[in-house]
């Protein structure tokens, strides 16, 4: 008798669970996310490197670029967000290796493959798959439950040549903050480079670098804690770069109003190049912006450079 009750209970329990079909009336949801076919609709922004041709994005891609190198070599760059782990880094890397004709790696070897890379101010992993006829350079970053894939596929020589540009491109990416989110207290400030500036590989001590006027001038951005050594030592560092004698006082320095308060502007002309530098002193660190290059190019782009610095949000 008791067994019968138990078995009945067990059968009843096994049959319980959610229905296969459910109907709900729910408050109206926000409209669906805009079609991720253009850069503006996607939650990410970037600075397109010189020579990269934007392409129509697809069903998965939020951005797509084509680049052509020497002897007609071609490569394709894509940004693809996928929900969740999207299969995991290990299986994705082995899939890419398979695509370029490389043997799969073991999980132990895989652990040593990823190179640290900065994407939109946060750490990501960069994987290089060099095949004989094609190579895949891919960066993976998980942000808020979404895995973002940044991938360059193409001729091995071109992919190798473009690696520094690709790394700089990753660094230039910015995610649009949630509407109610407070601005980040730390990390890279938000800037909006003017049209015509191209992102370039930033050196070890630079936060970002752009080429201006087709490479005739360049904008370097760097930062240092505290006052970064002070105004005059930095102005003299710049003077030295132009082959000028150190200045002994602050004569000739100007000030401009920026989003973070007043900033110091130094202008100087050397024999071969000209330089406009801006020092923005925040309470805890200093930011240095430098436009340097051909005197004509510097003069022509000085106004937009100063406007760019004025609008940077910290």
């Amino acid at each position, binding site marked *: 008798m008791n067994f019968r009750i138990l078995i009945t209970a067990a059968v009843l*329990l*096994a049959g319980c669970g959610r229905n296969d*079909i459910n109907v709900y009336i729910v408050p*109206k949801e926000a409209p669906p996310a805009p079609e991720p076919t253009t850069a503006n609709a996607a939650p990410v922004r970037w600075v397109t490197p010189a020579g990269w041709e934007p392409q129509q994005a697809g069903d998965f891609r939020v951005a797509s670029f084509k680049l052509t190198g020497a002897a007609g070599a071609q490569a394709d760059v894509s940004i693809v967000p996928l929900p969740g782990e999207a299969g995991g880094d290990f299986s994705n890397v082995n899939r890419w290796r398979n695509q370029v004709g490389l043997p799969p790696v073991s999980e132990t070897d895989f652990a040593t493959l990823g190179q640290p890379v900065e994407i939109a101010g946060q750490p990501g992993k960069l994987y290089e798959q060099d095949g004989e006829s094609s190579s895949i350079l891919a960066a993976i970053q998980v*942000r*808020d439950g979404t895995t973002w894939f940044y991938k360059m596929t193409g001729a091995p020589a071109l992919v190798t040549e473009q690696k520094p540009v690709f790394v700089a491109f990753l660094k230039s990416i910015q995610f649009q903050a*949630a509407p109610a989110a407070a601005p980040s207290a730390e990390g890279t400030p938000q800037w909006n480079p003017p049209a015509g500036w191209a992102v370039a590989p930033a050196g070890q001590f630079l936060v970002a670098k752009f080429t201006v006027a087709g490479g005739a001038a360049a904008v370097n951005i760097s930062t240092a804690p505290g006052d970064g050594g002070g105004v005059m030592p930095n102005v003299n560092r710049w003077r030295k770069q132009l082959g000028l004698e150190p200045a002994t006082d602050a004569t000739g320095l100007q000030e401009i109003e920026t989003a973070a308060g007043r900033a110091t502007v130094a202008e100087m002309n050397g024999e071969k190049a000209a330089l406009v530098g801006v020092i923005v002193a925040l309470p805890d660190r200093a930011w240095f912006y430098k436009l340097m290059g051909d005197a004509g190019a510097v003069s022509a782009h000085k106004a937009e450079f100063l406007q760019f610095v004025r609008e940077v949000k910290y």
Partner: protein
Amino acid sequence: MFARIYRVLTSLKLTVALLALGLILVFWGTLAQVNLGLYKAQNDFFRSFFIYWSPAWSSWKIPIFPGGYAIGWLLLVNLFAAHFRYYQPGQKKWGIVLIHLGVVLLLFGQLLTDVFSTESTMHLRNGETKNYSEASRHFELAVIDASAADSDKVVTISSHRLQRGGDITHEALPFTLRIRRYYPNSMPSEKPLPGYSQMETSAGFGNGIWWREMPHETDTDKRDMPSGIVELIGPGGALGSFAISSYFNRPQEFTYDGRPYRLVLRPTRFYKPFTVHLVEFKHDRYPGTDIPKNFSSRVRVQRPATGEDREVLIYMNNPLRYEGETYYQASFDTDDQGTVLQVVRNPSWLTPYFSCVMVGIGLTVQFLKSLVEFAKKRKQA
């Protein structure tokens, strides 16, 4: 024959053997988590009747050890049976009865938890409001009628039902859904790759994508990503076939009978009659270091039907218990601007407390009874 089975089932040796097997199972299952991950180890060792072993050279599954369900059920049956065999009415042993009932309640409560409890997560960015939580491993196809001005009519079809294929009709659906193909776990590709076939659909986006079925994912930190092709059939015939995929970051949209519809394959949602709004997520660190000190989510719970509107602070070991659900601080976004709350609904969460109290009282009664009898005998001697 029956007498023999009865003797075995009521045997106290069986109790001891089952408890010993349980010990081994817990030990083995705990170690197995290192290689299998928490989710697979739980399923293979505790949510199964047997632990299987597959020889490297074949796909056979050979049972080699009883699993959690087998040991639990046998223990339950054994406890009941032994009780009825050895219990003699009139004997003053209700302490023992209480202990037995307490253990039975513990085992049965665990079974109820396993069957009835649901776990889901609620991901909120600062300033975001939601009236649903989402399952982390289960998916559903949602057909959303967005024609009303202030509400949506949502018909959801479980992944379980989609896997069975065939035609799906429901009084709330004005058309039939024909499941052309459904992969519970899949991988898409923009290019043709070995083993991939091309998706062929006649409406919406996704036509021409390459895809393939993938094996079921059992690792703790991975999950299945389903995809499929669904055809809509109205009274006048086929309306078009759509690609559905958990990889898509936007729904398929179409109009039927003048009403706008959306079709989306998404994590199973558990709707609530209230909303949870994330006022602020805080990630406190010890001064001058990156060592986490505390994670907390200040949420606002609003229930229009009752006018309830209050703020609650959820932090480690201080969950929000509301409407039979418990909201734990589980994780957070890497930029510290969003929180992940684990939502657990467990209707039998009180059973372990009751069973512990019962066993405690039973043990106390038995002990006191023995003590009193011992003291009496000593006095007489």
